């Protein structure tokens, strides 16, 4: 866990007081809605279809049990008893009342939580690998660098009014679990041929109406230059990003228009003027931040303890162990994913009762620490392997031990038309129906890793363009239709999916997905060839033929 300092606490307290005054002035009419809108957005407050929505940042996806309990309290006291974890490691409350928001954010601030920079044209919550700090394949803990950026870019006066929002992800492992390629700016820790650790910097990724994958503009950046180089990227974007057209305002359009090479040259020119200035990183500063990440005092334990071997006799436990538990960098420990995708329920939703229970479980089994992943699941990052059997029983009891992590029913979905004022079509009911169709876990396991992503509009919060199967809701003459794409992925081999043909009506979506899955089963070269591998090998045509043969 990272321990916030006095600067953070003061900043949050000041923001609460400021927002309380703004809300009071809005309620009396002293501020008009036009004046107030940007102020509430700066605190993560949206007006959705039937209520205000508060988006709370979870920096680099790390929560303490104390913070999770506070989220539960806010859900219970100010909302309707649940929250929704998002694809950017945030949590959203869907039914907050404006008049009660100041009290809600005061309660959150007391636990070091806030909604600052979760909306508006600024640098948004900086995300990372939910396994950061414990993943066996990582170079370093990516959160140290994400925290450095968080400190530098929180209320940065030069970057508080960018042309459009700006999303940063930091990854440090060989396997990209942070979807770095679909971010405005991507950071991946790298080791050069001399063994030195630095960063690969990519820019211009983003989904939405015009999707692009990020392009690498700096294959290796030294640690001392981390802040100055990113500052140069942001300066260039701030100066040349399109403010006249919201559809062309993201940095991806600037990079596309200029070309990555030219963009990189411009960044280098800007950077050369500042790289040896105040932003050149002193290793002592980095060390100070790293020291504030407190790691648990792990016990000296062996892998595969006898308790685990004995518990495997229970087939349900064994299925969960094989699916939701992963290797830890520390011998005798494990990383455990909590599925927020129970059959027939909205992806990413978590009740206050579940939050409280997970906090208690985290205290008992994971040194009080919880992570949020962009797949809308939670993670307990420090579990002793010998504790896995009782942990499983506790998680199963509260409905977060469905062994479907990474499988067909582990669906990423945005809130869609059931909540969102921008949506064209519903996303959650489609996910619910698909999870019911694939409730047979033997079948799901036989299908192997298969990511379905659903967005209710082209803004792509469900990241449909990088789903192995992507589903995009559109509207045709007042009816919900869905475009289906296949072949997308958001990992270190990121690519955008390809449309298979005309959109299909709401009632047919699940049937179409079943047709696609059956086609995969017919075509896969061997049982362990993943859906995405088959799709890359055979292309769109066989899927298209099957889906539209009878439609």
């Amino acid at each position, binding site marked *: 866990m990272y321990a916030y300092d006095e600067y953070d606490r003061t900043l949050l307290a000041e923001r609460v007081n400021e927002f309380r005054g703004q809300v009071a002035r*809005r*309620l*009396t*009419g002293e501020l*008009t*809605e036009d004046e107030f809108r940007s102020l509430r957005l700066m605190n993560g407050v949206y*007006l*959705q*279809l*039937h*209520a*205000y929505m508060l988006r709370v940042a979870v920096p680099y996806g790390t929560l303490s049990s104390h913070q999770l309990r506070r989220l539960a309290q806010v859900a219970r006291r100010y909302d*309707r*008893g*649940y929250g929704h974890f998002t694809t950017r490691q945030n949590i959203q409350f869907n039914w*907050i*009342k*404006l*008049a009660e928001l100041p009290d809600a954010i005061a309660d959150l601030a007391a636990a070091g939580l806030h909604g600052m920079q979760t909306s508006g044209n600024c640098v948004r919550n900086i995300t990372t690998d939910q396994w950061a700090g414990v993943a066996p394949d990582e170079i370093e803990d990516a959160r140290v660098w994400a925290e450095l950026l968080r400190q530098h870019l929180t209320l940065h006066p030069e970057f508080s009014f960018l042309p459009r929002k700006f999303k940063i992800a930091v990854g440090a492992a060989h396997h990209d679990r942070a979807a770095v390629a679909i971010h405005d700016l991507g950071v991946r820790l790298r080791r050069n041929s001399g063994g030195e650790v630095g960063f690969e910097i990519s820019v211009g990724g983003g989904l939405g109406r015009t999707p692009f994958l990020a392009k690498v503009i700096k294959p290796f950046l030294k640690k001392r230059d981390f802040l100055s180089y990113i500052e140069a990227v942001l300066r260039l974007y701030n100066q040349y990003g399109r403010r006249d057209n919201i559809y062309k305002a993201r940095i991806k359009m600037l990079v596309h228009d200029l070309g990555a090479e030219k963009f990189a040259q411009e960044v280098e020119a800007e950077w050369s003027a500042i790289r040896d200035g105040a932003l050149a990183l002193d290793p002592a500063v980095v060390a100070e931040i790293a020291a504030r990440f407190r790691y648990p005092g792990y016990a000296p334990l062996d892998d595969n303890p006898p308790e685990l071997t004995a518990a495997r006799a229970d087939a349900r436990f064994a299925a969960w162990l094989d699916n939701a538990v992963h290797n830890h960098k520390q011998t005798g420990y494990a990383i455990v994913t909590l599925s927020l995708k*129970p059959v027939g*329920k*909205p992806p990413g*939703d*978590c*009740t*206050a*009762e*579940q939050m409280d*229970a997970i906090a208690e479980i985290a205290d008992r089994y994971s040194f009080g620490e919880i992570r949020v992943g962009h797949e809308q699941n939670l993670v307990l990052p420090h579990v002793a392997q010998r504790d896995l059997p009782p942990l499983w029983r506790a998680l199963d*009891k*509260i*409905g977060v031990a469905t062994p479907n992590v990474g499988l067909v029913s582990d669906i990423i979905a945005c809130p869609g*038309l*059931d*909540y969102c*004022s*921008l*949506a*064209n*079509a*519903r996303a*959650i*009911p489609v996910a*619910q129906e698909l999870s019911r169709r694939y409730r047979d876990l033997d079948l799901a396991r036989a299908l192997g890793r298969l990511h379905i992503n659903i967005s209710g509009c082209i803004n792509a919060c469900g990241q449909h363009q990088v789903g192995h199967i992507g589903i995009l809701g559109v*509207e045709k003459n*007042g009816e*919900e239709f869905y475009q289906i794409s296949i072949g997308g992925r958001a990992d270190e081999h990121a690519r955008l999916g390809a449309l298979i043909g005309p959109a299909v009506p709401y009632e047919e979506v699940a049937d179409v997905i079943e047709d696609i899955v059956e086609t995969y089963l017919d075509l896969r070269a061997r049982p362990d060839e993943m859906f995405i591998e088959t799709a890359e090998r055979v292309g769109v045509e066989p899927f298209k033929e099957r889906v539209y043969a009878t439609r």
Partner: protein
Amino acid sequence: MTSPLQQKLRITGPSVVTANRLRDGAVVYRTADSTWTNEIGEAAVVTTAEAASALLAAAKAEGTRAVDAYVAPVLIDGDRVVPGNLRELIRLRGPTIELPITFGI
């Protein structure tokens, strides 16, 4: 379905003016006597662009009771007024899904 907030005013049938209540964001409808109600059946129904524009202009002039007013289609079913599309139906009745509170432990 582009957000109605982004659409030019266009009336193709009976319509109402709807908004969200400032204090809590709840869905409300403009009445003929210049108040707001959460009952769509009590909303003022207009059938011309001119009437809709006038109703909307008055609603938008409101400072503190409701925000983000816009014109929404309705259907007249006998003596009942019902939302004219899925978006408005969801705004009136809430999400089409069972809310998660019901699967608490």
